[in-house]
């Protein structure tokens, strides 16, 4: 009788390994590209000159627009930005120290992001 190349047990083992590989890839490998893409989207929208939530006017930070953004609902802002990731906006000086902008302390965004141990919002 001709011997089978794969036994039933070997096939089961192979399927198990493949399934484990797919699960590990799906669960453990980070989705960095999406987060990075969304970070770029946020930056583009808040630095665009005429955007709905633009914060700049001739590369000068517009305090009134920043205050408006600070007062807006976080989920509403996420909807305008069209992102799923959480975000946080804050300001640093050239030495990396936090800059307090006109009483807005010190950041705008999600409370799942922490600046110096304190929630962004």
């Amino acid at each position, binding site marked *: 009788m001709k011997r089978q190349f794969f036994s039933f047990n070997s096939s089961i083992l192979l399927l198990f390994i493949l399934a484990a590989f797919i699960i590990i890839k799906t669960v453990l490998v*980070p989705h960095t590209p999406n*987060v990075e893409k969304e*970070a770029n989207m946020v930056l583009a929208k808040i630095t665009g000159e005429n955007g709905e939530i633009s914060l700049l006017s001739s590369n000068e930070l517009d305090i009134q627009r920043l205050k408006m953004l600070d007062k807006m609902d976080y989920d509403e802002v996420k909807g305008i930005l069209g992102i799923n990731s959480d975000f946080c906006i804050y*300001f640093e000086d050239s030495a990396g*120290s936090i800059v307090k*902008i006109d009483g807005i302390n*010190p950041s705008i965004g999600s409370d*799942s992001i922490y*600046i110096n141990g304190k929630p962004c919002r």
Partner: protein
Amino acid sequence: MRTKTYFLIALLITIGVIYTVNVAPQTCTCEGHTGEPGCCAANQGQACGNCGTIDCAGSCAGQGVCSPGSVQCNNGKYQTCSSSCGWTDSGTDLDGDGVDQQCEDLTCDNAAGVCDSAVPSKCIAKSSPEICTDGLDNNCNGFADSKDSYCDGQIQGIVTDKDGNPIEGAKISFVYSNLVEEAYTFTDSNGQYGPIVLPFGDYSIIASHSDYVSQVIEDYLDPRSTLTADFTNDKALVYGQLCEDDCTYAGDNVVHAGCDGLNGCNFYDAQAASVCDLAQPGWIRDYNQTQQIQCAEGAPYTKTELKAAVTCVKENLIKLTQIVNYQGKLVKMIVVACG
């Protein structure tokens, strides 16, 4: 028959002797007897002179016209002597006037369009005066157009108040079209200034005095001309409104340290006046190493020295930075995404 035979033999011998004496190649066998008739020089065939060879008579024959490596200018053409002892043109004549840079065009041959003798449609003679608007160093002094002092003009004028009275000590600044202050001077007791020699071009001429509103005259100074810019009549200085209470000049929205103590302008102290000079009201400047100050708006305060450390409850965190202006300082706007 025998006679004929002897005659033929004698004829053959005669021909042989004549050939041997007059036609056969001369073989030098004169060692030690150089110069004697029929003998060649001992150094025959050696090199001599400029690419020449010593001949049998001891003369240097076949010489070239120059010594290899030597140079000359021949009718404005730069020539070097080749290895075969002949002159070869090797100069540069970028301006096309027939005179090489290495000869008489030392100054100007590389200035396109300028040469030492006029060539129609190619260049103008360098002996001509500077032409101030053609982009060329016509007189070959190393400077073209407005860079050449030959093209300078001068500005003069008078400064009065609205009543026509001369103002002494008014500062007259000459700001060139590149926004650089080219020069400044002060008016004398008659309110007059200048003439000040300046490169030609567009100028903003600013008259300022701590007791008056400053005035500006925009004008063009032609090459080699005199421009009169009088601050009189509608350009006369108006008394008493130069400094406002926010330490800016009327209309310029720039803080001036010189306004301290005038018209309600009071800086926190001299240090504050110094660091805020030429800033805009509200801009932030470093007061010292630990403090900063908002210009024209109060006392110094301690800088925030809190280094930002960002964390995220999810796996991935991306930080992007954009440099922006905030109250006269560059700050980093940080966008953090977490997902």
